[in-house]
């Protein structure tokens, strides 16, 4: 059974600081996705990582994938309050599976 774990589960950080959220998974993965969820809202797609060594960046967020280590990271640079949200990674095991297994989520709070 595929397990997807994120850490930390909760993160409180000051504006302007850098931090990294980690996503570990237990089985060889085909692809990895990052989503954002604001309180009481739905999920918004952030990044799709399609191969080993893939790196995607959007604004202050940068995601990377190491398939050999079964690890993805979401790095936050110079955090701002608008980035406060819960972040989920999701893993797709193999082609034709049509299913994603979601991580536990990391609740990020940016303090002014």
């Amino acid at each position, binding site marked *: 059974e595929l397990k997807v774990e994120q850490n930390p589960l909760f993160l409180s950080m000051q504006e302007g600081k850098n931090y990294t959220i980690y996503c570990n998974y237990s089985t060889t993965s085909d692809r990895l996705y990052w989503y954002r969820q604001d309180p009481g809202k*739905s999920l*918004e797609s952030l990044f*799709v990582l399609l191969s080993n060594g893939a790196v995607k960046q959007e604004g202050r967020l940068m995601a990377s994938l190491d398939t050999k280590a079964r690890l993805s990271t979401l790095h936050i640079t110079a955090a701002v309050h608008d980035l406060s949200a819960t972040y*989920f990674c*999701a893993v797709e095991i193999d082609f034709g599976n*049509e*299913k994603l297994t979601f*991580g536990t989520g990391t609740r990020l709070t940016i303090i002014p």
Partner: protein
Amino acid sequence: SQTIHQWPATLVQPVGSPLSLECTVEGTSNPNLYWYRQAAGRGLQLLFYSVGIGQISSEVPQNLSASRPQDRQFILSSKKLLLSDSGFYLCAWSGLAGDRALSTDTQYFGPGTRLTVL
């Protein structure tokens, strides 16, 4: 562009009552469709997914059922709600391009239905 709708947005139902949540997708054809449940402060649990009309796969045993009567319509139902059915229900769609190397299985989520069973 594609859009996904869910209704109702909020629902409060007594234990033992029936349930029907609806999800529709616009702007695409033959999407994969998914129902998830999110308990308060928790992650997402996949309940059902469908790759075509009338094709439903259930992920967890429960008193819920799903149906796909039309290509872009996905319905989540229950004959008798339990307290444990409370949660945030999310519908999602994904679609593959002809060449998988050029496409992704990114799932796009609807706005959700918040269900409270009392």
